[in-house]
């Protein structure tokens, strides 16, 4: 049962906080959130040592299962380690923007991620997966008064939800094949279901990890508060895609096409995202594009069959990327602008600049930082697959040095003089502590280079690292140096960046958003509008066709009745009357009384017939016409009697039908 707590604690605390958000002072926010995340972190560490499992039965067919598999436990610890400083930072950084609501959603977000991480079956995975997506919607839409933010939140959510369909597909395929959703049972998958399963998981992972062609949603996600971005890009949400692939890699790699296809998507994103980050002028969007690119590298390692290399990079990336986002937030607050060209706060905030430098060096993968170690492992994995693949990964590495340099010089570079440097809002102590803590963690991860640490990691986590070659290290060192130099150049000669953008290196995902808008979003909305019109005007009319046929038939019957039957009847009566009159004139004296009686009777008969005939011939068809035709005016005038009539008709109809059915049988 304990194993549920890492997920349950933050979720429950978040829900309580949400409903009590009006009366929670900021100091309490800080205590509650650090206590809750700290507690759940402690349980994650315990889980890593004890490797417990737990399950919650829904029905005979469905249960939610958790297991502290090594990857799950390690990831769970990572989520706790990253979310603690980020949430604490948020209490301070977002103090003017409804902090209690933000913290409450952040806590639920973290809890949902823990559920996803500790899941041991596809149902639990899907629950965590979708909850994380919904929380990201709430986070991006946090400042809902600005209309554009909820719209972007919806964009991000809709794109990732499309990816979620992949998980539904995978679950369906698994159940159809092995009648179970447990990870443990997936080994027996085969046939077309195995292909459907792999395709589903890959689709979901590509969307969640912002790989091409889904990458643009991550730009929309920038509408959210900075701490939300810091979390979203590091240990939650985006991490979920790569994590799911790592966790399920033994099953997925059984499918022949899985490796090459995953490498292809990863590589495309690593290069595409790298180029965009290299020229972007918006500090947070630069980081966003770099996230896609870094996850692309992880996908390459997974596709090459080295999930462990990908996992180590995921951990290292989470630490420095969350810190870089927090740094970016500080720079934006201090400079009052989100543009790299208007920040450069290095002179006023030197300590912050130092911490940011550590993160940026990590992003550029400079030894002896841990990031360089994991980048090396990915390179080795790629080379092991194919030497040319290795060269492309090197090119992606070069790009990361370019954008890392641009990011650092842009945010915390030094201006020529501090005359024009004005700090709008300097970071508080909690914000500083969070950034420094994460920078310290990045430095600490440099220990990965020590063989003894590497050994402990490979013993603990399943999978191997690819054997490295010496030229790889030199080659990547060279690319880092070249890349950093290029980044420096781009920073100091902004004209170069402009020229690049003009040359078609665009910063908006190669017109992908425009194409999506044009070929998917607008046609869908148009289809929706036209089907709404169709439904209202055409379909409804067609469905009431029988009714209008009945109406016109009955009104024609009524006319026929008026004109022909009634007229005939009336003329017959008139004839009788006139003959009677003539008879009366002829023999007035004898049969006067009798004839008068006859005339009176036939007169009455005529009138009565007229009345009854009218009622029968006109009333019933017209009544039916009113009913079935929904002739609005008349219906409104006469609606109370209709039900009654109708039930008479039902009764007679029922009798007729019964008779028919009995005869038939």
């Amino acid at each position, binding site marked *: 049962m304990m194993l549920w707590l890492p997920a349950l604690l933050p979720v429950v605390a978040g829900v309580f906080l949400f409903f009590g958000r009006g009366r929670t002072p900021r100091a309490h926010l800080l205590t509650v959130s650090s206590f809750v995340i700290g507690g759940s972190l402690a349980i994650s560490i315990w889980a890593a040592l004890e490797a417990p499992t737990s399950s919650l039965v829904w029905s005979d*067919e469905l249960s939610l299962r958790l297991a502290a598999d090594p990857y799950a436990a390690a990831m769970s610890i990572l989520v706790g380690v990253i979310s603690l400083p980020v949430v604490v930072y948020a209490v301070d950084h977002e103090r003017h923007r409804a902090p209690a609501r933000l913290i409450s959603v952040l806590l639920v977000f973290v809890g949902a991620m823990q559920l996803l991480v500790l899941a041991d079956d596809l149902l639990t995975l899907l*629950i965590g997966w*979708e909850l994380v997506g919904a929380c990201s919607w709430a986070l991006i839409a946090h400042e809902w*008064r600005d209309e554009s933010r909820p719209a972007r939140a919806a964009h991000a959510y809709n794109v990732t939800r499309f990816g979620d369909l992949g998980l539904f597909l995978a679950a*369906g395929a698994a159940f*159809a094949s092995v009648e179970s959703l447990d990870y443990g049972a997936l080994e027996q998958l085969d046939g077309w279901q195995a292909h459907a399963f792999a395709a589903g998981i890959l689709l979901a992972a590509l969307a969640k990890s912002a790989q091409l062609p889904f990458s643009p949603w991550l730009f929309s996600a920038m509408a959210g508060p900075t701490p939300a971005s810091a979390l979203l890009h590091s240990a939650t949400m985006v991490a979920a895609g790569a994590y799911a692939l790592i966790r399920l890699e033994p099953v997925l790699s059984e499918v022949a096409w899985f490796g090459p296809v995953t490498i292809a998507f990863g590589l495309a994103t690593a290069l595409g995202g790298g180029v965009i980050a290299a020229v972007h002028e918006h500090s947070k969007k630069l980081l966003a594009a770099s996230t896609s690119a870094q996850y692309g590298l992880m996908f390459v390692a997974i596709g090459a069959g080295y999930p462990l290399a990908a996992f180590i990079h995921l951990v290292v990336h989470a630490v420095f990327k969350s810190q870089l986002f927090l740094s970016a937030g500080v720079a934006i607050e201090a400079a009052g602008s989100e543009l790299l060209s208007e920040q450069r706060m290095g002179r006023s905030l030197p300590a912050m600049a130092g911490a940011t430098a550590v993160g940026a060096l990590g992003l550029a993968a400079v030894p002896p930082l841990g990031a360089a170690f994991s980048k090396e492992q990915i390179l080795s994995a790629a080379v092991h697959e194919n030497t040319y693949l290795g060269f492309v990964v090197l090119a992606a590495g070069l790009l990361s040095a370019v954008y890392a340099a641009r990011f650092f010089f842009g945010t915390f570079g030094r201006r020529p003089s501090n005359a024009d440097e004005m700090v709008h809002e300097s970071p508080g102590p909690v914000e500083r502590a969070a950034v420094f803590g994460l920078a310290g963690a990045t430095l600490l991860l440099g220990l990965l280079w020590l063989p003894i640490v590497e050994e402990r990691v490979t013993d603990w986590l399943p999978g191997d690292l690819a054997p490295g070659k010496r030229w790889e290290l030199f080659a990547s060192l060279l690319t880092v140096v070249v890349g950093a130099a290029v980044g420096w150049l781009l920073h100091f000669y902004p004209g170069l960046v402009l020229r690049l953008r003009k040359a078609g290196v665009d910063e908006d995902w190669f017109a992908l958003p425009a194409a999506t808008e044009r070929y998917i979003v607008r046609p869908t909305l148009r289809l929706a*509008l036209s089907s709404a019109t169709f439904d209202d005007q055409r379909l409804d009319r067609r469905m009431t066709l029988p009714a209008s046929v009945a109406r016109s038939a009955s009104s024609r019957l009524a006319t026929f009745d008026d004109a022909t039957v009634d007229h005939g009847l009336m003329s017959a009566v008139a004839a009788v009357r006139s003959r009677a009159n003539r008879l009366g004139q002829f023999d007035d004296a004898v049969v006067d009384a009798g004839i008068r009686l006859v005339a009176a009777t036939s007169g009455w008969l005529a009138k009565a017939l007229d009345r009854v005939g009218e009622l029968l011939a006109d009333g019933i068809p017209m009544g039916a016409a009113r009913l079935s035709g929904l002739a609005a005016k008349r219906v409104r005038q006469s609606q109370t009697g209709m039900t009654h009539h109708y039930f008479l008709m039902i009764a007679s109809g029922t009798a007729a039908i019964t008779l028919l059915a009995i005869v038939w049988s």
Partner: protein
Amino acid sequence: MLTLVVLIPILGALFVGLAKAGHDRWVATVFAGIPLVFLVITWTRFDFDSDAMFQLTETATWIPTLGVGWRMGVDGISLAIATMSALIFVAAMVYPVDTKGRPSAYYAWMLFLEAVSLGLFLTTDLLVFYVFFDLSLVGMYFLIGRWGHGESQLAAMKFFVYTLAGSLVMLLGILALYTATDPLTFDMEELINQQPLAGNTVRGGVALLLIVLGLAVKTPLFPVHTWLPPAHVNAPGPVSAILAGVLLKMGTYGLIRIPFSMMRESFDRFALVIAIVGVVSILYGSLVALGQTDLKRRIAYTSVNHMGYSVLGIAAAGAFASGNDAARNLALTGATVEMVAHGLITGSLFLMAGSFWQRTQSYVMDEYGGLSASAPKLATAAVVAAFASLGLPGLVGFVAEFQIFVGVFAVFPVLAGIGLIGIVITAVLFLQMLQKIFFGEPAGRSLSFADLGKAEVAVLAVLLGLVVFLGIYPRWLLALIDHTAAVLVGAA
């Protein structure tokens, strides 16, 4: 006790309608609440080890020569739906509404409708089922026609004529089924055991199509759903909640109860056709809903989408010849959970729509904006209900849709895949709705909008609380439904 569940609201209707004692809303709530209590007690007395088809049966002979009787009884499916319906009725009574100066008549009709609705779910006699099926139209007709707004007379008439035509078609099918029994009987248990039309391909097929067509109108499925939007738009909020939450279930419940159980052979033959109609309804319903500018019409069309899921699940479960017992069981359980989920979720959404009308007399989404500022409680409830309706895990709609999808995938993988697209479209349409009404700078009708009152908050809290609870821990509900679904699916 089950008879009392029907009788007490009837007595309540007479009392409220004739005694004119005042306090109609609360008297009606009490009368509506007693059946709910009784049904919860029934739930606790339900025997999960029994293999009887119906439990807690009550029988009285009525017209023995025709085989008609007053027969009551429950299985897991009917008990789950009846309990949910009773809850929706209580919620609808408590929820504030404009009764246009005639509260006693309004609440009397509501109680009448509750009696016939619960009777329909609890009876095990096919003719009594049919009678309740028709009587429900009468109650709804008056509620929409007399207490509705806008073109309510017209909408009520359209609803009445349309669904009555459907029910007559169904009657024809029922009689074709009935006349094949020997001795003649309307006893459902007998009908299920006898499978009267087994081996009679032509007549079985015709009877099945007639019954399914009749039920499809009520459900409603594409293309016989066009009575639904006007009926919803012009009905008062609580009446809409009942129309969507309870009356639509009669269609899908009938589908399980009659053709699925009593005509297995024919149902199996037409399962694919019915599944295709279900998938078309899923996609069409969600697309048309996305095309609406009117809040209530948008919610109304999502019903077509959701009931499409339910029908898809039933159809896949009814592909008896395909094997896949576990998957079909899952699909049928999911279809039933979808009915309960849709009742709770769409019921809440329509009640909220009623709150909009009470305050501003407008459902046009573009006339609102930034409503979160003036009505944060309503905003919270709407976000929860919207996400529940789009199938977010942790909320009961997901429990239904996940089971339906996984179950259907084993039987009709391609149809399941196509139906999945509906999940994305519902997400788009609900987020767009939230965005238009609740986000942005407060504007238009949002400016002087009073937040939810106490009664409204209480009702929505109960309904949405259940949505959350059943979404996290649906075990009791699933155990109840599974018990019956396993029998219905496996007994092929």
